[in-house]
């Protein structure tokens, strides 16, 4: 019992996984109902076309035979002829309109979903972000949401339309011959159950894995492309290729199984219709022999059954792959669960005082989920507004974590972090972004022009301002020599630039802003001594009147010392080991 309930909390059911997305669909229920109605109209027109045609031909033949035998007989040819033409046109037009209308609905929904997912991502903090792989996210936004379009168009509307068609056919037949009506209702009812629930169970496991497997393959390909230099150097490209091939053959094994299961369902649709055809004809023939049913109606019945084929044929393939929709929904649910709930902010939002911001850490500890040891242990220090603190320490000592805490990107596991007397996490994200600037260790540049990357900091900045900021980081001459100047594209993640250039561009971007607290994580990494000195002097001017924390390995390590340091602390393995005022000599 306990076992079952534990399992229940881990393993969410199909319906529960899809529920949030069904609710989202329900917001557009009028469009969806209209779409389903158009689908039903198409299927019923096909039914009407075949049934009336069968009836009409047989009635004509019977009348013709009677006339030939000299018996006076008449047949109204205009009403059935008109009905045949009407059904023929309705079927074509309603199908076209239905498909277009429904796809537009779905794509509108998809655009909304993509935005919703990106907004969810944008709310994640460093804890959640560090657990994900960029290539997985790509899949989240595109493939997962695309898979969910199957919900309405392939999984919700078709079984409903099939049920309508089954009921309509059963009633049509039952009016003239109840036994035939019941036969159709029972056989197709059972078949409908198989084509939906049965096929879904058959393909659930394999189709549920598909998205994740393709994702793994994509991740593997990205690794291979990005790491080709090392793989080629070590001659281990073939080994990595073999890994990709193993992933691929696992995917193909599932695709083969799913394809064959869907083919089985499709073949069964034809067989079920065939059995019904023979059965209904047999019942009709006996009723006709007993003079309970006219000839034309006896023919109309099996012909009408043929039309059910169209309503049932779409089901098996769609339901065999229902696991794909489920997996996609589960992954998206997962991501939404991770985005931090905006805690109810107790009192009216407190604003830190204007101007340079004081900073304090009180017995702050920080643990990453799943990590072995705390990154920070009982760290305390204060820095008055306008001063410049160097936080020294080896890589892995916890410097970047202090920076992330002050920038509100992480919450302390224990203790108190304050910026201008307010916890950074209690500030509105916009206010935080405006007043606190952080230069991260890893520089993010976007696949756009130099100008676009700089204007991220200030969309209104003029070209002259951009040039000034490039001048400040000694990149202006280099940029001026580029054929495309500020319009030069920097490539994915700034790959078209050298490491030092990317770093300086990030600094230039930062200096276009006007923050009150500046956190610089290894500002001069990858720069040569001359460049570092040039950048340091312009950085010094810009930092005037702001509170600054530099995160560096050590001071007095050559020409790479940050400018104007007034205080210094040293972090060693997550602990503060000494604190001293530091005055720069000469």
């Amino acid at each position: 019992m306990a076992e079952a309930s534990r399992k229940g909390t881990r393993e969410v059911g199909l319906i529960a996984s899809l529920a949030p997305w069904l609710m989202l669909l329900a917001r557009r229920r009028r469009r969806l109902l209209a779409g389903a109605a158009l689908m039903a109209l198409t299927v019923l027109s096909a039914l009407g076309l075949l049934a009336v045609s069968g009836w009409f031909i047989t009635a004509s033949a019977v009348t013709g035979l009677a006339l030939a035998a000299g018996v006076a007989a008449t047949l109204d040819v205009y009403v059935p002829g008109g009905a045949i033409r009407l059904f023929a046109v309705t079927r074509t037009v309603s199908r076209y309109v239905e498909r277009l209308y429904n796809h537009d609905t779905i794509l509108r929904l998809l655009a909304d979903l993509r935005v919703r997912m990106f907004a969810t991502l944008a709310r994640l903090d460093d804890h959640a972000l560090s657990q994900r792989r960029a290539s997985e996210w790509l899949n989240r936004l595109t493939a997962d949401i695309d898979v969910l379009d199957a919900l309405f168009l392939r999984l919700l509307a078709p079984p409903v339309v099939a049920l309508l068609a089954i009921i309509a056919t059963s009633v049509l037949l039952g009016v003239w011959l109840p036994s035939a009506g019941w036969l159709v209702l029972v056989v197709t009812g059972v078949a409908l159950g198989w084509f939906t629930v049965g096929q879904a169970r058959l393909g659930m496991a394999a189709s549920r894995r598909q998205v994740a497997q393709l994702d793994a393959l994509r991740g593997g390909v990205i690794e291979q492309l990005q790491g080709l230099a090392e793989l080629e150097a070590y001659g281990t490209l073939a080994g990595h290729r073999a890994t990709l091939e193993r992933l691929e053959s696992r995917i193909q094994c599932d695709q083969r199984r799913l394809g064959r299961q869907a083919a089985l369902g499709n073949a069964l649709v034809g067989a079920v219709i065939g059995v019904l055809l023979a059965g209904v004809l047999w019942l009709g023939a006996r009723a006709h022999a007993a003079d309970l049913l006219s000839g034309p109606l006896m023919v109309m019945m099996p012909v009408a059954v043929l039309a059910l084929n169209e309503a049932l044929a779409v089901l098996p393939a769609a339901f065999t792959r229902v696991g794909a929709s489920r997996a996609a929904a589960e992954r998206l649910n997962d991501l939404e669960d991770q985005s931090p709930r905006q805690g109810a902010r107790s009192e009216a939002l407190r604003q830190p005082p204007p101007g340079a911001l004081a900073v304090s850490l009180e017995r702050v500890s920080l643990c990453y989920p799943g990590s072995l040891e705390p990154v920070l242990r009982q760290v305390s220090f204060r820095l008055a507004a306008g001063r410049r603190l160097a936080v020294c320490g080896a890589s892995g000592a916890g410097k970047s974590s202090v920076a992330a805490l002050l920038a509100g990107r992480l919450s302390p596991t224990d203790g108190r972090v304050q910026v201008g007397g307010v916890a950074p996490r209690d500030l509105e994200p916009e206010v935080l972004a405006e007043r606190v600037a952080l230069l991260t260790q890893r520089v993010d540049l976007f696949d756009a022009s130099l100008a676009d990357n700089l204007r991220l900091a200030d969309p209104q900045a003029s070209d002259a301002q951009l040039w000034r900021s490039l001048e400040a980081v000694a990149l202006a001459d280099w940029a001026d020599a580029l054929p495309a100047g500020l319009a030069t594209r920097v490539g994915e993640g700034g790959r078209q630039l050298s490491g030092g250039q990317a770093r300086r561009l990030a600094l230039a971007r930062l200096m276009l802003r006007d923050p009150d607290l500046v956190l610089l994580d290894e500002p001069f990494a990858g720069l040569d001594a001359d460049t570092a000195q040039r950048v340091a002097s312009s950085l010094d001017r810009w930092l005037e009147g702001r509170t600054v924390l530099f995160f560096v390995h050590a001071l007095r390590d050559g020409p790479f010392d940050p400018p104007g340091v007034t205080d210094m602390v040293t972090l060693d393995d997550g602990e503060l080991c000494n604190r001293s005022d530091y005055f720069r000599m000469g």
Partner: protein
Amino acid sequence: MATPRHTDDGLTARRWLAGLIAQERRLVGLAVACGLLAGVLTFAQLGLLAWLVATLLAPEASAPSALWPAFAGLLAVLPLRALAQWGQEAAGLEASLRVRRRARAELLDHLARLGPVWLAGRHSASLANQLVEQVEALEGYVARFQPQLTLALLLPLACLGIVVWLDWLAALFLLLAAPFIPLFMALVGMGAERLNRDQFAAVARLSGHFIDRVRGITTLQLFGRTRQATSEVHVAADDYRRRSMRTLRLAFLSSAVLEFFASIAIAVLAIYVGFGLLGYITYGPSPALTLFSGLYVLLLAPEFFQPLRALSQHYHDRAAALGAAEGLVALLNETPTAGRGADAGPGSPPAPGMLVSLREATVAHAGRGQVLGPLDLDVVKGEVLVVTGPSGTGKSTLLQLLAGFVGPDSGTCHRAAELSFAWLDQRPLLVHGSLADNLRLASPEADDAMLVRSLAKAGLGELFEALPEGLATPLGERGVGLSGGQAQRLALARIFLSDAPLVLLDEPTASLDTASGANVIEALERLAEEGRALVIATHHPALMAMAHRRLSLEPQTGRAAAYATPRGEHG
């Protein structure tokens, strides 16, 4: 080793697809045979139905029970037909699985030939998307469209044959409707194909746009730009919707046109047969119409159009495959730079003791002009050569040239025969897998003890001791879970694992603190003592101190300014 493809005999999407499918001719043929059998069995089923009805309604009607063999036949057809249908789908599927596997292998081979420098200028997520999604997009074309293409010709002909035998005038009605269908489909298909190609470009742009923003989401948050970025995502997604709708409007039109003609033809036939049976039509074969022939003609009419309808439903598979194939073929038509991966230029291989020799070598990047050289350089066995110079002067390019990732644009670059080398740049590779997986990239056969030793040499010994899962500890993409310095040292550990005589290092200590930097330098010295040659691009004074020789590159031109500094004479 690399056989550059010439663009003038460049591959086209159609030729490439045709070549792939030709290799699966037998499976596609099997699918066609199964489809043909299923179709013929359907004709038989409908014939039996019409015969039964005609017999049951004949003036001297026999009792239904007397007709049981015909009813039994009606049922006996079903399992056979189901089997044939299943066989058609399964054979087509198998063919498409094989085609996709082969296409992916060909693309990966080609990208490996193009090399790391070519790839650095590309969006690897877009490329990976092409290799995964766009290769998957070939599925329907091979599995369904190709067999259906043949069936759409054979089955209507067979159907028409039966109708001609029953009533040639009815056959004429079908024939009149038929020629319009391929005509309309061709017209509509051409437009749909172009739109589909645009849509693929849109999908690739959308994923590139997204992954770029996701990678940089921290920066977007820090700059308070997430709201703007979210609305940019909306614009991109909405653009995708509008493109899709344009494609779909045409794609659906082709099947609508087909259905319109099919419906009209069936309606006309029903009315013709009805009037014929009533005796209103006295022309041609009409007076000879019976209930059997009339009903059979009517039942066959939808079957005449069914294979064409199926073809038009799979038409978007074709358009999707061609659209995908164009993007893929564009990749296949990219040529590696001359001399990439091989000795380049005239002249002889380097003298014994030399690993790589450059003579008057230059390298230019598109849009950036000459970034290196002309440069003369010999890398000698066992030496430590330090390359310095302000950032952007071509230090990385020199290392790429020595590695063979780029060829010289002029001058020569010769490598010793069978030269293997180790590589470390500023963005070390971290694969999604265990710590051991990451180390074995350098040497797949290395045992655990060797892995542990290499970690210790790279200064990761302490970290390793602290890991409860040891070598099985999972690591993520781009070293999530490891700091920048740790990731760098992991890549260094790989170098210790390999036995390459030449080690190319691009700023190996850029993100290390003094202590671990000193560890690394010590280890690099051990490497040099083992007789390996190190070429190091760096600004680090302690690394410069290791140099046997120093090469200083000048700003802007990438020319060597100072050269050959004896050991110890550093600044």
